[in-house]
């Protein structure tokens, strides 16, 4: 809802010389939503709905075959969260048969915006009804990847965004899936949603990629599929988003510390997993370790819960790279924390008058809280 960032983005993309945004495919207003979800959802959303719908329709009409819509937004602010939630609901009405994937960026736990927890709760509760799947990146996690794996001393948002873009790219670049019969899949969003978000109460997806290292080190590293997959599986089980300080030149120790947590209570059960392999010798990669029934919940068989996509084209200079998109308990703790903090603030009714001013009542808050408690309870049951 304000022009600075869009102007910057369009300039920067045009400067690269290789691609740019269309001249008319953007929309901005003069004044933002002031970090106020209610302002975005109740005021700006409806006001600008028609213009945005027109822009989306123009792009959709240019497609031969619409695979789906992906909305990218943050949950802490006002526009991304409020207007984003409104637009998602509206697009669901206009395109009822298309897949809608929302990519969300969750803010730092130590606070970027004071009312971020309110905005996040309201956004998630509303999106859950209309979106097919919600792919989440947390700023805290990506920041740690930048500092510990990529060794960046002064991390800027450009670095953080680059990591997120790498992970998204490794999911959405063309791949050969089980349904695509030997050609690159024409329906990546649909297959993603179909394989992972099989139950309406379980829509939260998280991503891990391996390897992630500073580009200067790539030339000196060798990768092997068994090694990569073993680490990725361990990352899934122990719910860590990155491999920590492992030297790729050395043989991995066979009984690492973390294997022992396999049967412990911090074991991360998954509902479904999607493994995407890109690079050399991808057909020889042995993915059987991901089909272990112990990884999954009891009511879905591993054959249905686990899918693999492959592509022989290397991605972003990594000779071999593996990405795991999982619908698991990984996001349970951050979600729980966020809900707890929002509830504490709500109990003292702080900042509520700012939301009521624009049309969101206390009942709306209570509804969102109840709904998310339900989601947390469902994930706990996995």
């Amino acid at each position, binding site marked *: 809802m304000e022009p600075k960032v869009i102007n910057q983005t369009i300039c920067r993309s045009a400067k690269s010389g290789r691609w740019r945004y269309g001249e008319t495919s953007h929309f901005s207003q003069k004044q933002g939503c002031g970090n106020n979800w209610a302002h975005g959802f109740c005021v700006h959303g409806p006001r600008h709905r028609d213009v945005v719908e027109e822009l989306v329709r123009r792009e959709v009409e240019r497609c031969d075959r619409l695979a789906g819509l992906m909305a990218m937004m943050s949950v802490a602010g006002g526009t991304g969260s409020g207007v984003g939630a409104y637009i998602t609901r509206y697009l669901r009405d206009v395109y009822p048969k298309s897949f809608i994937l929302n990519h969300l960026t969750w803010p730092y736990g130590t606070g*970027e915006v004071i009312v971020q927890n309110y905005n996040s709760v309201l956004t998630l509760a509303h999106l859950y009804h209309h979106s097919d799947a919600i792919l989440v990146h947390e700023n805290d996690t990506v920041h740690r990847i930048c500092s510990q794996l990529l060794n960046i001393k002064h991390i*800027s948002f450009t670095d953080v965004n680059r990591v997120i873009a790498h992970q998204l790219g490794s999911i959405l670049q063309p791949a050969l899936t089980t349904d695509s019969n030997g050609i690159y899949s024409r329906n990546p969003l649909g297959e993603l949603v179909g394989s992972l978000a099989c139950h309406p109460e379980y829509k939260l997806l998280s991503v891990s990629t391996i390897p992630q290292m500073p580009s200067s080190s790539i030339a000196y590293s060798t990768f092997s599929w068994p090694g990569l997959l073993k680490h990725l599986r361990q990352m899934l089980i122990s719910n860590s988003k990155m491999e920590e300080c492992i030297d790729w030149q050395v043989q991995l120790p066979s009984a690492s510390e973390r294997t022992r947590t396999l049967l412990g209570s911090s074991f991360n059960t998954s509902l479904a997993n999607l493994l995407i392999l890109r690079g050399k010798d991808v057909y020889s990669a042995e993915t059987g370790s991901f089909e272990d029934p112990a990884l999954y919940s009891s009511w879905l068989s591993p054959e249905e819960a686990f899918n693999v996509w492959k592509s022989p084209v290397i991605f972003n200079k990594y000779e071999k790279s593996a990405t795991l998109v999982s619908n698991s308990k990984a996001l349970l703790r951050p979600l729980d924390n966020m809900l707890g903090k929002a509830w504490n603030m709500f109990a003292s009714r*702080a900042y509520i008058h700012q939301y009521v001013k624009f049309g969101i009542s206390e009942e709306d808050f209570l509804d969102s809280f109840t709904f998310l408690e339900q989601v947390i309870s469902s994930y706990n049951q996995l």
Partner: protein
Amino acid sequence: MTQSVVVQVGQCGNQVGCRFWDLALREHAHVNKKGVYDEALSSFFRNVDLRRNDGGSCGVGGKIENLKARAVLVDMEEGVVNEILQGPLREVFDSTQFLTDVSGSGNNWAVGHMTYGSAYREQIVDKLRKTAEHCDCLQCFFLIHSMGGGTGSGLGTRVLSMLEEEFPEVCRIVTSIYPSAEDDVITSPYNSILAMKELTEHADCVLPIENQALVHIVNKIKHMSHCGKPGSVIKTDTTVMSGQGGLSRAEKPFDTMNNIVANLLLNITSSARFEGSLNMDLNEIAMNLVPFPRMHYLVPSLTPLYTLADVSVPPRRLDQMFSDAFSKDHQLIRADPKHSLYLACALMVRGNVQVSDLRRNIERLKPSLPFVSWNQEGWKTSLCSVPPVGHSHSLLALANNTCVKPTFIGLRERFTKLYRKKAHLHHYLHVDGMEQSYFTEAVSCLNSLIEEYDHLDATKGRLMPDAPRFSIAR
């Protein structure tokens, strides 16, 4: 890009406002080397081509012809405004932006609020509306005034309620200069308390500033520059109180103190004017820092106050800047926020600072700052890439903190001392429209505000249990 209008009322308001425009021009001249009228300039200035017939406003993107400030200047005596009109800033204002009278308010809130408020209501609203019409998208009114006098305090608060009536959707940020205990105006407690009621009810945010704190800061800088320690030579032109490079040459008394306030205003709007990796608009200030409608008093603190002439800037200086922002020497009122309870805090960083430095410092300082139990991570951050003139980076912290309570209590005590004896009361009651009930209402309003802060203070240090959450029946 949004625009803001500055309304300066009274002698203090106009003098501070004057320094603000001077520094704003200096900052934009520093950043804008090409002479193009860009979006950043348009937030405070209009570009007017006087040769055109239609009133002359030019759009963004053209060459700078004549810059006119988006301001309304109000004073009930002519001295200060005449000085501005004869000084080097006369080109920046045009005659339709002034409103003056001859005799002044005599340090009497009632005269300012009632007499002049009613007499000049139409004219003031007219001027405000004209200024607002020149704006594409008006986001905020900045009101600058003092609390101790008659015009700034009385007429200023009347203008505030006019702004609320005529432009209810536009944010109102008020910079109020509170009188110190040894103020030379005897009736300043009366004026301040009467004005406080209006501020509590009609303003969106108030930035209270005390003269005492400004004097303290000025003395600290002077001490630093004269103490002659090796390595402590201050780079000229970088102190927050220096106006060098601006239009006005001679520095008058109060100029140094006013410069600090002007810098405050520049830094608050910097993220809305210039680009950065994490922008913060002015309406976000009110949204994030005001949890309850009446508790909107935000204590400002500015760092660094000066830059040493030492060229090497190790990262330790950056961390020092963050620590200083919370020390009681840098606050613009006499208060110690570290020992009171924080409700919320905003950090507005300018210059070459990355998000990792910001997060590192927040994590470092958090354990020593007491936050209210339901807002343990109550930080709002913004990063603007354009640093202020003379510094490589700077930080403005706005804290909604219960440390304003002692200031208000002190004000109330001084008020009670006079009110008990009914001293000077007749001057006020003689004014048409003024009654004794105004005084009692104003005091009770202040009392309830202090009580609200008390309630929150009582929770400080106590481990508040988390509110029980919903449990889902299965």
